[in-house]
């Protein structure tokens, strides 16, 4: 094995560090209100930070870095997946407002794989520039882990599909412009065989949203209702009635692009620093053996996370599909996100319970947030149970029953 970057990778890594050090204030990592492997986005406490973030994000788009692994003719830089991974790692380590997230991490790559040339021409530049944002229209009230049960139906009518049904747990739908949506297009086919993927404009008449407040008190989820919403046929992506199989690929991308591996390292470092410099009952926290051992364990698991993350990039660069490996990464990283919050809570004691930043609240009161937020990590984008099914069945060849 060889764990070093090659020369290109190393110089890109250095370039990223220089860029980040120059373009973001040194204390930027203290600004976003987020926990590793969150699904709830990164709100800021100060609106000025929002603006700084927008400026930074524009610079990234200008450099073509939101889409570095896309071919150059599509606004990308033609970098390898390993370089993409290095980019993701550095950006997430700095907690930079870099996330092309769903648009650049899932929709774009999928369009490049299965979209028509016309679709690519239409959508890709707008995605690459950061101009438009997407939400994922997968879950429905009766289709959570069992995505093959989606019942939102799109019937063909002239040059449109007419959508009726409901999506739920639609994260960030209210901030986005379009949905990357799976719906049923053949009512008679067996469940996985009759679904198709679409791009759906939020502004389509007949689409309404109901905000759903999450346990952090934030509006991140939505229920989205479609009542005779007419979607042009050219928005069908990939083959009709093959949507479920396309979506399986998209899920692999999702598991990789959402992990934000660098945030784990950052919070570990912050936690270690806190422990180094704090006392409890007059005794340095770092002198408590269980605290030492818990941090050592977290650090080890962060290191594992890095390797499982880079493995997916290495496989993509070899032309392999890291579907099982992305499940392993997902289950490992999300459980680490949870345990990191739980351990931080144990170390901080009652101080970890505080929900508002302030003198008494270590780590900007993020631990209480992480404790709640990480609940969703092992559920969203495929529960840990589903990921383990994937590892067992697709990875180890155990029977599907």
């Amino acid at each position: 094995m060889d764990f070093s970057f090659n020369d290109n990778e190393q110089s890109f890594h250095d370039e990223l560090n220089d860029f980040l050090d120059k373009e973001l204030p040194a204390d930027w990592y203290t600004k976003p209100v987020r926990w590793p492997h969150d699904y709830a986005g990164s709100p800021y406490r100060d609106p000025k930070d929002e603006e700084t973030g927008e400026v930074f994000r524009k610079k990234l788009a200008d450099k073509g870095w939101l889409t570095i692994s896309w071919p150059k003719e599509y606004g990308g830089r033609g970098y390898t997946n390993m370089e993409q991974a290095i980019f993701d790692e550095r950006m997430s380590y700095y907690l930079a407002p870099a996330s092309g997230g769903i648009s650049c991490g899932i929709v774009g790559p999928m369009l490049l794989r299965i979209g028509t040339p016309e679709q690519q021409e239409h959508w890709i530049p707008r995605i690459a520039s950061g101009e438009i944002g997407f939400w994922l229209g997968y879950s429905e009230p009766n289709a959570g882990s069992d995505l093959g049960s989606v019942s939102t139906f799109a019937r063909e009518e002239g040059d449109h599909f007419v959508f009726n049904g409901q999506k739920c747990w639609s994260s960030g739908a209210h901030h986005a412009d379009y949905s990357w949506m799976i719906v049923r297009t053949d009512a008679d086919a067996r469940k996985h065989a009759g679904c198709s993927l679409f791009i759906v404009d939020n502004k389509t008449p007949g689409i309404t949203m109901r905000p759903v407040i999450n346990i952090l008190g934030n509006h991140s989820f939505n229920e989205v209702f479609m009542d005779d919403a007419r979607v042009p046929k050219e928005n069908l992506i990939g083959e009709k009635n093959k949507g479920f199989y396309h979506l399986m690929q998209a899920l692999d991308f999702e598991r990789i692009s959402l992990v934000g591996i660098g945030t784990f390292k950052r919070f570990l470092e912050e936690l270690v620093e806190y422990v180094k410099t704090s006392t409890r009952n007059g005794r340095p926290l770092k002198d408590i053996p269980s605290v030492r051992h818990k941090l050592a364990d977290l650090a080890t698991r962060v290191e594992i996370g890095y390797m499982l993350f880079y493995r997916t990039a290495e496989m993509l660069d070899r032309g392999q599909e890291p579907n099982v490996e992305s499940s392993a990464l997902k289950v490992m990283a999300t459980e680490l996100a949870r345990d990191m919050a739980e351990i931080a809570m144990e170390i901080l004691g009652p101080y970890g319970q505080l929900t508002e930043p302030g003198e008494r609240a270590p780590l900007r009161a993020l631990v209480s947030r992480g404790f709640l937020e990480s609940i969703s990590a092992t559920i969203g984008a495929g529960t840990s149970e589903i990921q383990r099914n994937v590892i067992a069945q697709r990875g180890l060849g155990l029977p599907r029953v």
Partner: protein
Amino acid sequence: MNLDKNTEQTMLDDAARKFLQSKCPSSLVRSARDDDAPFPQELWQGMAEMGWMSLTIDQAHEGLGGSFDDLTVLLEAMGAACLPAPYFNTAVVSATAISRSSATGLKENLLPRIAAGKLVSTLALIEPDNSYGLDNIQSTAVANANGYLVNGIKLFVEYAQGADYLLTVANTEGDGLVVLMIDANSPGISLTPAPTLDYSKQCEVFFNDVQVESDLVVATGEDARELLLYLEQVCAVGKCAEMVGAMQTVLDMTVQYAKDRTQFGQPIGGFQSIQHHCANMAVDVDSARYLTGLAAWKVSENLPAAKEVSMAKSFVSRVAIRVAKMGHQVHGAISFCDEFDMHLFLRKVQSASMAFGDSEFHQEKVAVELGL
């Protein structure tokens, strides 16, 4: 041996569950959270009318003279309801402290008012650079002609803005700890809200030259230390009972959801992973209930209980969080919504697990009791 509730306790439990289902639905927990008032007054009065405030107060002071064991029945029901009111602070901590005080006047003055639901009191114990235990109390109480002059900072004081009294622990010079019931309206007290996960409306409390009259002294010297050690046991087991109540509700909700929710053409409760999650939760709940019961029984019977109390608190604190998180996991995304109740229990058990010593703190105490 009887591993169930006795007849009186079963009746108490039935009455409590019925009352709380009707008067303290989860909608009330949310509205209490969002309301500026420290806690719902109507609920409080209803609880007083049920006789709950006076459950363990002796009959001489207008109480019902119930045992601590009986009290845990109520606390379990309250944990199951995520009660948004300072019952624990007033009727468990403060009433117990006053009841065991040798200050006759204090008892006569305060206990009947607690029993009648007319007095709210909360505990001011933890301080900066301190999490659990009594070893590092920096607040000072300097004796003077009329009582004590108190200075210091107290953290994590639940429902402080609604309290009439603050049950406060401070250090004297020379005579060790002193336990005081401080009138919350005394000059020199100021509060800063410091909200926490569990919606218990916590504050930081600052004492700046606060004069406490002699008739509000609960205990001093060796009495104070003994009282506090007893209170620590009562509080730790009381929190266990709350957690057991919350865990049982989480288990019940989760099993019901697993039966009702269909995915892949069958109830998710038919999947072995879900079955095993639920089985593990059930064993955790039973284990937590018995350990708590054992500790409560020993405390009630005035038997040496240090080992059993710490076994209960260390174990229940650990598994309660595990059970609550598993409840979320089985429910999936729906449990991440504020409008779904599961997170109320997660918050409740998280807070209770840390209150009066977390799992590791009590593991260490168990080790001491093992002779290590």
